C-alpha cells in the first residue's frame, strides 16, 4: 500500500476522508447535477450518470453561476453531497459555498494537475487547514 502526500493552498472546511471520483472536466452545481438523485445529470459532463454522494470529488475548475454558493449548503443539509471537492483552480463562488456549507475544499496543488495526481477509487484524506491531501493506494 502506497501513501502519497500532496500539498495545496490552505482551504476551507473540516478534515475528511473518502473515495475519490476524478475527472478533468469542470464543475457547477447548477449546470451539472441532479441534486435530488445525487448524480451528474448534464449529458455532456464526463461523469454523467455517476453518483457524487460522499465522494471526494476532483475537478479542473469551477464554471458558471453564483447559485452553487447556496447549493452546496442545501445539498449538505439533505446528506446528498460530496465529502470534499478539490480543484486545480476554483472560483470564488464554490469557495464561498464551501465556507457556508462547512464542506472541505482545496485548490492550487504544488505538484501539478490534481486531476492526474489523484485517480478514481483512491482513498483520500483532505486536511484543508494544513493544505494537505493524502492519497492511499493499493
Amino acid at each position, binding site marked *: 500500500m502506497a501513501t502519497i502526500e500532496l500539498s495545496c493552498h490552505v482551504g476551507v472546511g473540516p478534515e475528511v476522508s473518502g473515495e475519490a471520483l476524478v475527472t478533468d472536466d469542470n464543475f457547477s452545481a447548477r449546470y451539472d447535477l441532479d441534486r435530488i438523485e445525487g448524480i451528474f*445529470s448534464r449529458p455532456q459532463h464526463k461523469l454523467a450518470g455517476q453518483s457524487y454522494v460522499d465522494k471526494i470529488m476532483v475537478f479542473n475548475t469551477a*464554471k458558471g453561476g453564483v*447559485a452553487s454558493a447556496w447549493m452546496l449548503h442545501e445539498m449538505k443539509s*439533505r446528506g446528498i453531497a460530496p465529502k470534499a471537492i478539490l480543484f486545480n483552480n476554483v*472560483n470564488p463562488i464554490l469557495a464561498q459555498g464551501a*465556507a457556508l456549507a462547512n464542506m472541505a475544499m482545496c485548490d492550487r496543488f504544488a505538484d501539478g494537475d490534481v486531476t492526474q495526481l489523484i485517480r478514481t477509487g483512491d482513498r483520500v484524506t483532505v486536511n484543508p487547514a494544513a493544505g494537505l491531501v493524502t492519497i492511499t493506494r493499493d
Partner: protein
Amino acid sequence: MKLNAEEQAMLAGELGEPRRWAIEHMMRVGRFFDAPDFVEVTQAHIMADTESLGEAGVEFLEQMAALPEGERRVRIPMITDPRGIDFCHYKRLRQTDAMAALEQRAIDAFESFGIMMTNTCINYQTIMPPVRGEHLAFGDTGVVIYCNSVLGAYSNFEGGPSALAAGLTGRTPRYGLHLDRNRRATKRYRVNCQPQYLSDWGALGGIVGARAGSYWEVPVIEGIESPPGSDEMKHMGAAMASFGSVPLFHLVGVTPEAPTLESVCDPDALAAETIGEADFEQFFARYGGKGEKVDVVVFSAPQLSLLEMQSLAELLDGNKLHQDTDLLAVTSPVVAADARRMGLVERIEASGALVLEGMCFYQSYAREMGEANGWKRLMTNSVKLTNIIGGYGYEPTLSNMENCVASAIAGEIV
C-alpha cells in the same frame, strides 16, 4: 487578514450575531484567496431564488431574520437577483403551491434585512448602474461581468451568502477583481467577422468563455469594428461568464480599461488567437433540431430590456403561436411595468405568449416545469440559457430572436 477596529468589533459579536457571522464567513473566503484586508463596497446584489436556496437556505435566512432589527439590517443599498416565481403566473407554469410558499418565506426574510426586492439580473440597465472604480458585491455572473467590463466597476462573483455578508458589513475581502493586478489581460483574441444578432454576440461570449475557461483569466478582444450596444454586451458577457466563469473582459477601443491594446497587456508577450466565421458556425452547429417540433421558446437569461421587449412585440404582431408551442418572455419588474404601460406586453401576449417578470427561466424549477408542461425541445436566443438548461433535461436549440419567433409560430424549428 488585517482587521480594523470596527471589523474586530464585528468579529467579537459586539455588533450582533448576523455581523459576526458575516465577518467570519468573509474571513474564511478571504484567507482562501489570500486577501490582505477588506474593501468597502457601495452596493450589494444577492441571488434570491429558492431553487438554489432550498429549504436549508431559507431556514438559514429566517434564523437570522428573527434576530433584533438593529442587528440584521444591511448597511448599504442591497437588491435582489431574479426569483424563481412570478406569483401572477406560477399556476399556469405548473409550478406548485409549495414552491410559491417557500418563495414567499424567502421574500419575507430578505425584506426583514432591509433588502429591496428588485428581482433583476439587469440592474445595470434599470436600477443603478455602477461607475468606474466603484467597489461592489454583486451576485449573478452576468451582472458582475457587465459591471466589471463595460462600466469599469470592481466586483467578484458574490454568491448569496457572501453577498449577504457584504450587505451586513458594507465590505468584502480584497482579492480577485478588486485588485488592479488581476484585471490585466491574460488571453488575447482577434475576431475577424462581425457579430450581428444578439445570439451572435452571445456565441462570441461562449467561444471566448470556453477557450479562456477560468475565473482567473481575463480575455481581451480585438477586431470589433463598431461598438456594440448594451444588450449586445449583456448577451456576450452573460455567455462568457456562463461558459468560462470569466468575470471580466476587455474590448479594445470600447470598454473603459482598454482604450488601446497596450493599456491591458504587452502585445509582444501575448499572442492573439483568431476567432472567425468557422468558429461561429461550429458553435451554432452543436445545437441541432431543424424541422423538429419545438415545445417552448424562451427569451430569458438575461432578462429582456425594454428594447428587446419592443423587438419581440414587433415580431409577434398579427401572429398566433402554434397550438403545441409555448413562448415565454422573461423580464424585470421595472421593464415589465414600462412595457405594460406602453402596450408592449399586450401585443406580445396577443399571440398567445406569456410575459413573466421578476424571475428567470432556469432559476424557476426548470426541471419540474419541463416535466409538468411536457417541454423538452427548447429554443432560445440566449447562449447562456443553452449552456445551463441541458442539465435540467431539456434539448436546447440556439438561433436569433427572429427565427425563434418564426419557429414558435410554425411549431417546428425553422
